[in-house]
């Protein structure tokens, strides 16, 4: 187990370097941060050269990258062009997005698994078919459409919730955005647990449990569910990383000042340190989530052993 973790961590290094370098390349080589600083005006060449020198932008790209990564590992993510340090921005943004992600995961688990279990136990019946069709429809409607639609219906027309989220982003205001963010994954959780349940319901251990006289609820919750949820749990695990990076659209619709909001602003303003810093953290979160899922998988399914 320990050796496996170490090997996986080592394997992450090239992926980490590759992903961050790709983003670094896109931001610094394709865009021009210094020109962006001046907005529509043409920068004075001498000033521009000075800024380039101060920001280390006059070096070749790989040197810039090394310099940047070196600083990051000392905890210095640089300064955004408005003078705030990037770590400060992160401290404000990540808790908000984390809350939003947790709300989304909560709905995925509760609604997704419930629907999946119901339809899996009634495979081929009307409930099952309608759940399947519903999930297909949910998958097909893009997030920004559902987002605006639900915001309009619940927030504006019926006035059940506040249509936008205040800067503190308390939990009760994040319910609707959380559902919007969760919807597509929710549909996948539903389909995944449905298949898993439908397959395991015919397994021998379920028949044994029923034969020895256990009540149906106990068979389902203790025997069937525990065995069927392994793939679902692992899916949800990887989804944490995906949701945190994928919240750009949701955060924009509901005006949530989280990671997606900062990234979007950073990209629009060509605010390179913000963009690269946030993406670097997201890539790390994503890689770690993947590793955790693989380890969790061994915990949940004792048949799998990592040497």
């Amino acid at each position, binding site marked *: 187990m320990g050796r496996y973790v170490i090997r996986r961590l080592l394997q992450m290094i*090239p992926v980490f370097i590759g992903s961050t370098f790709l983003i670094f390349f*896109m931001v610094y080589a394709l865009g021009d941060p210094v020109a962006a600083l001046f907005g529509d005006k043409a920068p004075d060449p001498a000033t521009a050269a000075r800024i380039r020198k101060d920001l280390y932008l006059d070096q070749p790209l790989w040197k810039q990258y090394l310099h940047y990564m070196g600083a990051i590992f000392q905890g210095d993510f640089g300064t955004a062009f408005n003078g705030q340090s990037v770590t400060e921005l992160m401290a404000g943004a990540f808790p908000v997005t984390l809350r939003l992600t947790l709300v989304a995961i909560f709905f995925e688990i509760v609604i997704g698994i419930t629907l999946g279990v119901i339809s899996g136990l009634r495979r081929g019946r009307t409930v099952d078919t309608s759940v399947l069709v519903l999930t297909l429809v949910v998958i097909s409607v893009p997030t920004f459409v559902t987002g605006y639609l639900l915001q309009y219906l619940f927030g504006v027309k019926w006035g059940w919730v506040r249509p936008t989220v205040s800067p503190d982003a308390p939990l009760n205001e994040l319910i609707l955005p959380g559902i919007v963010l969760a919807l597509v994954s929710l549909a996948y959780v539903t389909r995944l647990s449905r298949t898993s349940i439908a397959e395991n319901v015919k397994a021998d251990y379920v028949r044994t449990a029923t034969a020895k006289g256990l009540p149906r609820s106990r068979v389902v919750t203790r025997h069937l569910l525990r065995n069927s949820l392994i793939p679902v749990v692992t899916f949800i695990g990887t989804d944490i990383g995906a949701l945190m*990076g994928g919240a750009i659209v949701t955060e924009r619709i509901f005006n949530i000042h989280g990671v997606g909001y900062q990234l979007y602003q950073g990209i629009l303003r060509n605010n390179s340190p913000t963009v690269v810093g946030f993406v670097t953290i997201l890539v790390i979160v994503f890689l770690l989530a993947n590793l955790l899922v693989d380890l969790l998988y061994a915990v949940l399914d004792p048949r799998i052993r990592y040497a």
Partner: protein
Amino acid sequence: MPDPERPEPAGYDPVGPRPKEAVSPTGQGGPMDLALDEAESVEGIEKTAGPGAGGPRERPRSLWSDAWHQLRRNPVFVISAALILFLVVISIWPQLIASGDPLQCDLAKSQQGSAPGHPFGYDTQGCDVYTRTVYGARASITVGVCATLGAALLGSALGGLAGFFGGWGDSLLSRVADIFFGIPVVLGGLVFLSVVTSTTVWPVVGFIVLLGWPQIARIARGSVITAKQNDYVQAARALGAGNARMLLRHVAPNAVAPVIVVATIALGTYIALEATLSFLGVGLRPPTVSWGIDISNAASQIRNAPHMLLWPAGALSITVLAFIMLGDAVRDALDPKLR
């Protein structure tokens, strides 16, 4: 180095939810990896007693003719194929059902509701929403089809070669694919496309191909690895067939089915991705008529004139749904284990 503990992504086996595949390091969210999960996993067992499962067959049919027979009787396939045919036709000849010009607008009619001859009403600029919705199909279909073709060709070529020859090329490809999976799709799109100034569809297509190919490559690699272990490939090798012949005549035809399935479902999600990028302001740009742009413009006015948002959004959703349903039906037909 493909690690031995991780079960080889071998073969195409959508029957069981193989959790390892369904969640293996796919990209960070975004629609593209969902296509992969969808294609690989879930659903399906219900159709065990598909048409022709019980009765005796007259003569053995190939996988393809068999699949075609099954598809023709599948209402999901017929409906989605008809819808897609319709979409393709109006994206080539939008004049057939819309007589107006999508760029001819009358500000006096800004945000007005439906009127005779203009069933969907007008948008903020006073353009006819119906005409723009019809013309918007072209951008979406073009991006979807071109991006899928590009990603499928590039992905299956690289993945197929890596799977067939193995070795260091294979390891390199897997690592490169991992790198691309580590970048969140929407985020990458924002960064990459925000510096592009072209107003054509090609940068968007290029970007989707760039981030889409690793997925297809992974599928193609797995399915080639399964196919090349078959006895008939060994027989061909024993008879002295060269690599090219084995790959093209024996392996490829037997490994292509999963790629087709994934590509079909991915097509729908690529269309959704294009709309999302256009919505964020970095995908297609005016004067290209695109559902994503129209939805983005309408979004700020949703309280005054929801019709401006609902029609293009509905068209977009139906298009994506049609392609995903088509992929679903094709998968059911192409997987012999389900029959």
